[in-house]
């Protein structure tokens, strides 16, 4: 193996890594925003309100991310109505299609994590809020959501890592993310092992950095617990 090609093309790989990071950051933020109402609807006492997010979550967790990306990127353009609509400039761009698919996907997983966290809060705290006379909104804003945030962190960190690994699929719809860039370089140099291993190493470094950041946030968020750690239900 000849690793001089890695040195030569390293700046290109970093460019790709930056695209990967953008994909992950934008979809994680958007996904998190969508996940909250989905999670709250998912635990609603009304059966038909529960059913919609249940079906949504079941679909996006039960099908491969690759299918979801293709559905958005290739599937949407099957309809003339989409191609003539104001959304077309967005749905034409592979980058935004990837963002849409990733956001839908991660919001389903994140909603389940949020739901688990909200349900993991001891019933006594909910009762205490009611006894003090808090409204439902106050209860969520002041007690349940901040508590859930602390419980959610480890599982949420995992979700971001999974999203980072999922972002490699963006390369299948012509996006030059880290994997896409690696494949482009390989098409030119024909050195698959060297370049793929280098790309793998960059992914590994990004994952390790994300894990380290989350460990710090977790320590900070849960500092009132002392050394006690909370058991979080694992994602499926």
């Amino acid at each position, binding site marked *: 193996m000849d690793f001089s090609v890695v040195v030569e093309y390293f700046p290109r790989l970093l460019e790709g890594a930056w695209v990967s990071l953008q994909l992950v950051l934008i979809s994680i933020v958007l996904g998190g925003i969508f996940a909250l109402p989905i999670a709250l609807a998912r635990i609603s006492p009304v059966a038909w309100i529960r059913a919609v997010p249940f079906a949504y979550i079941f*679909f996006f967790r039960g*099908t*491969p991310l690759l*299918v979801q990306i*293709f559905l958005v990127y*290739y599937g949407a353009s*099957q309809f003339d109505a989409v191609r003539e609509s104001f959304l077309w400039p967005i749905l034409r761009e592979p980058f935004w299609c990837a963002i849409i698919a990733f956001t839908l996907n991660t919001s389903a997983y994140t909603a389940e994590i949020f739901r688990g966290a909200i349900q993991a809060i001891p019933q006594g705290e909910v009762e205490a809020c009611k006894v003090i006379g808090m409204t439902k909104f106050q209860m969520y804003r002041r007690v349940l959501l901040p508590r859930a945030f602390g419980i959610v962190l480890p599982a949420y960190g995992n979700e971001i890592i999974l999203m980072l*690994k999922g972002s490699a699929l963006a390369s299948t719809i012509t996006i030059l993310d880290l994997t896409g860039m690696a494949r482009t370089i390989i098409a030119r140099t024909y050195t*698959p092992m060297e370049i793929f*291993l280098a790309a793998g190493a960059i992914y590994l470094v990004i994952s390790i950095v994300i894990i380290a950041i989350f460990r710090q946030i977790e320590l900070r968020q849960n500092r009132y617990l002392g050394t006690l750690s909370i058991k979080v239900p694992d994602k499926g």
Partner: protein
Amino acid sequence: MIDLHGFGDQLLQGAVVTLELALSSLFVGLILGLLGASAKLSSIAVIRWIANGYTTIIRGIPELLTVLIIYFGATSVLMAIAGLFGYDEYIEVGAFAAGVTALGLTFGAYATEVFRGALQSIPKGQHEAAIALGMGPIRKFYRIILPQVWRIALPGLGNLFLVLLKDTALVSVVGLDDIMRKANIAVSSTKQAFLFYLVAAFMYLALTIISMVFVSYMEKRASRGLNRG
């Protein structure tokens, strides 16, 4: 009834390939997971390091990249090894073999953690009782430890299998004729992308539901010794 333009049985053939790939990778992954977990609990430091390196690397890089590395890399590695033995014909690694290797390695890395937790949760007394009865290490493992580990590990392994099932779609990228690639072929000839990818999605969903039912049956079966009294 939706019109699949005659691609219905093609898609079903793809589903069979997907299932074959998932089950073969499961088999490889379970063995790797048990080996990995034993290695992580080994008293020899070097073996622990190897197992830790394996799980960290595999879990830190995208599954798609693992598939690509195995698919493109296995050929050159195998040819280098074969070259040592004086065999210098061209060796080609098929998409299926590469897929089983890559997905088996991925499943094995996650299963290592599941098995490790399960192995550690077996009370020491169980080991001691088995030794006291005069069982050798292999018989102890098969008769006493494995059935209990299996019961504890099953929910975790079930989740991993659902992830594996979805990851099989990635092997279509290197040309395996699974559901995903059959759908791609159907799309390129009929131009009905939304229809065929949606059908593919529901096929995966159906496989997921079947697996979930099967796993819950296995869980019941594995804990039948526990629900008696």
